[in-house]
């Protein structure tokens, strides 16, 4: 029996502002607990919130990036619940009048091809603090550095059909938000968090099954694992004639399973009502237009442009290069500096990307990489030698050609030198020479390799073969 899986995701992203949503405290990660707090984010008596205009702007930009409708008038609301990391006893969020509604995320699903996932809403809210349950035995400590950090909550429709699609949606969403400078989307730092709703039903059914909510997933890979586990759990229940209970589950990454949250933690009536400390958020058209200008080229558009503009690269190259804006920009600069587009794509997707992932910077200016690629094109160095030079370039500001010379990696096309190396090799391997001359011509590759070795990579492999052939004939 087969099941159709239906998934909707609620994603919280921390907006890339310097200060918090409703006060001037810095938004940081990893600083000592409770060092970025003030009367407002501590919820002290008499303190009042004032919206951070930059956070509002980034929320608008996020909505525009997702093709959503930005509402000229939205309303902040209080979500009431008690928890020690929620200083005011309520979270300022938005409820029935969110900043924006509508919008979509498009990507290619492995199972269904091109899909369009609807965005139901995007709203602004403040973050809660962090409860630390493992600092002091038997006690809970509270760090309020994060309390009041600006968040956008992005809610998708129930349009995803597999755990893999959920992951692909997140990759695409993260790409869009990073591209537009809205959020750094780091799950590690908690600047992107995912809650998922999942239900299953028979293919062809139009009514949704009973859903469960899955929380506590700390990587995109774990989102896929958690949703796979939950889908299988629900299918198991239904196949045994049982039923799914609407509940909230926590993913345990060590066991790869989901377990129910304690019941009392989830039975909330949040008693939302309009936040009386803040007037309705009224946006004038010029602010919205300003954010539209700040949007820049979105990944989907850039990917399409790459395929059009850079004739020799593949669609896959374009997809991979535009996964991160920095990578895409670097690639374009390398091509601008004169490199062949396909070769630039190969270098950027491999060597340059690993260097970037390791250190966070490319380390080699685009024009230097372009001239290195040029050296290979001109036959001055071999591709193999170029990779050694690349590693060297990460440590030095020298020109690629100087590095090649210093490391004696210049290819030698001089026939006299080649002839000398070939003679040396043939003298060293008399048995193989004899076998070749008896017709074992596949040994040619072996001889070429030996010449390259003897020349320490300096021999031009294209020039070696004719010289070898000539000497072997004689």
């Amino acid at each position, binding site marked *: 029996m087969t099941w159709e899986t239906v998934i909707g995701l609620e994603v919280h992203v921390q907006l890339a502002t310097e200060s918090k949503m409703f006060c001037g405290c810095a938004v940081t990660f990893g600083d000592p607990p409770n060092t970025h707090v003030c*009367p407002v984010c*501590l*919820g*002290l*008596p*008499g*303190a*009042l*919130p*004032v*919206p951070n205009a930059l956070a509002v702007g980034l929320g608008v930009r996020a909505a525009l990036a997702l093709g959503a409708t930005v509402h000229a008038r939205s309303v902040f609301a*209080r979500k*009431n619940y*008690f928890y*020690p990391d929620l*200083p*005011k*006893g*309520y979270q300022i969020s938005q409820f029935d009048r969110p900043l924006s509604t509508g919008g979509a995320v498009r990507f290619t699903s492995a199972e269904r091809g091109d899909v369009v996932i609807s965005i139901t809403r995007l709203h602004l809210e403040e973050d809660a603090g962090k409860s630390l349950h493992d600092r002091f035995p038997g006690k*809970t400590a*509270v760090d309020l550095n994060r309390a009041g950090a600006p968040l956008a909550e992005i809610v998708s429709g129930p349009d995803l059909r597999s755990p893999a699609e959920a992951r692909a949606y997140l990759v695409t969403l993260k790409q869009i938000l990073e591209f537009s400078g809205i959020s750094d989307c780091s799950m590690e730092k908690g600047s992107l968090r995912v809650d998922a709703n999942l239900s299953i039903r028979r293919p062809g059914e139009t009514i949704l099954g009973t859903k469960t909510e899955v929380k506590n997933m700390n990587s995109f890979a774990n989102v896929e694992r958690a949703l796979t586990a939950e889908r299988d759990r629900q299918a198991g229940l239904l196949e045994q004639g049982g039923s799914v209970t609407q509940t909230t589950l926590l993913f345990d990454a060590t066991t790869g399973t989901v377990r129910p949250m304690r019941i009392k933690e989830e039975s909330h*009536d949040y*008693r*939302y*009502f309009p936040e*009386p*400390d*803040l*007037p309705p958020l009224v946006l004038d058209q010029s602010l919205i237009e300003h954010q539209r200008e700040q949007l820049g080229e979105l990944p989907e558009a850039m990917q399409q442009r790459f395929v059009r503009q850079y004739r020799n690269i593949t669609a896959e190259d374009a997809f991979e290069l535009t996964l991160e804006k920095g990578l895409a920009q670097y690639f374009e600069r390398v091509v601008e500096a004169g490199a062949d587009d396909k070769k630039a794509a190969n270098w950027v997707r491999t060597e340059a990307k690993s260097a970037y992932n390791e250190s966070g910077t490319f380390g080699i200016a685009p024009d230097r990489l372009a001239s290195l690629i040029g050296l290979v094109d001109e036959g001055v160095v071999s591709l193999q030698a170029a990779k050694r030079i690349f590693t060297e370039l990460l440590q030095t500001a020298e020109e690629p050609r100087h590095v090649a010379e210093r490391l004696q990696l210049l290819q030698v096309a001089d026939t006299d030198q080649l002839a000398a190396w070939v003679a040396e090799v043939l003298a060293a391997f008399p048995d193989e020479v004899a076998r070749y001359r008896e017709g074992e011509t596949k040994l040619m590759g072996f001889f070429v390799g030996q010449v390259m070795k003897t020349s320490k990579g300096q021999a031009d492999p294209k020039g070696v073969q004719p010289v070898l052939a000539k000497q072997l004939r004689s």
Partner: protein
Amino acid sequence: MSRVAEIVDAIRAGQSSPGAMAREVAARLALAETRALNAVLAWSSDALDREAARIDGQGRGALTGVPVAIKDNIVTTEQPTTCGSKILEGYVSPFDATAVVRLRGAGAMIAAKTNLDEFAMGSSTEHSAFGRVHHPLDPARVPGGSSGGSAAVVAAHVVPAALGSETGGSVRQPASFCGIVGVKPTYGRVSRYGLVAFGSSLDCISVFGETTDDAARILSVISGHDPLDATTVDRPPTEMPDGPASLDGMTIGLPQEYFPDDLDPGVRAATDRAVSVLRELGAKVKPVSLPHSRYAVPTYYVIAPAEAASNLARYDGARYGQRVVGEGGGLRDLYRATRGAGFGPEVRRRILIGTYVLSAGYYDAYYTKAQQVRVRIAQDFGQVFGQGVDYLFTPTTPTPAFAAGERTEDPVSMYLADIFTAAISLAGLPAMSLPIGRIDGLPIGGQLIAPAFDETGMLAVGMALEQAIDPTAEALS
């Protein structure tokens, strides 16, 4: 005649000094203590001396040397801020309220923190964790509330002016009971930054003065846009009136719903007399109707508790204030024990009401409905002011000061003390109470209501009425 102006002028002329004022106020505060008014929760002569020294070091301002008492739900760094609640006993704020910053900037000295109904919830200042405030003229009676402490210290001539706060009448009502002036500005005119929230959409820092001029001088200093309060309006501070207004050609509306048939005869006599004075001064007096005002008290008692339940959630024992670790030692035990022990019965009652009206299944029937009625109430005022009426005049309270204990067992009878003030708070309009006579020796106030942001015009009318009326005359004689 203005006590505030006298002090400022005397200091400017070198006949007095901030130090001398500090000593005088200390003596008056000490005297008030011997009278057991219980109006003050915190004061010290050392703190007053420090205030005087600070003022000596700054240039002359609009309020140089003027001692001002502050209701204890407005935060100050020099004294604790308790809100009249055990849950905040001993709490000292790390920042001053904007109104306090502005007062001090203008040269005023913070004289004392005054007693109040716990978290400003009440109309008699009997609901304070630190004991009830006594009426300065009759210790068996209440001074009104919730700003009863501030009203009492002004009425007892301890200070010429004080800050109170209004949510539904908490300054105008005690001003009426105590025979002084109480001015509530337009919502958004005075920053709420540092006013401990009760009903955020209604709360207004408001002013008591011995006279209208006293209150007007304070208001002109504390009002004006504040970047720390997103609900303040972007307007300059209120201007001082040029003096008593000429009422010639002015139209004063008398909303009939505020003069019911069963109105207390003394209150009726006093307001009748005030109305004839207004006529004598040249005003045209005209009956008008505010039909939705009759729903003001029930509407108020949905909206204010709803906001209060949320605003008071922060007092949970986790970060500051009283903390009681409950039996069992768990998180819920902490909340229950802390809040159960820290809040008094009236506060608990309102938290329950507020939580109830916002709950799933009840929200539309109560909260949504109340918001709709609130809009209608405000529209009534807009209509009347749009039809050529300049100001409205009503009684401030349905009775003079009542006896202590008389209404504590019957919350609804207590709530009805705000019957003539709540609608104005819901509409966000400016209003003031000023003494218009006495009933068996007890003061009674009349209320002037103005269109939004016309505090200055309203104060000028108040000055004219104040000048022409004998506030100590018995209404029924």
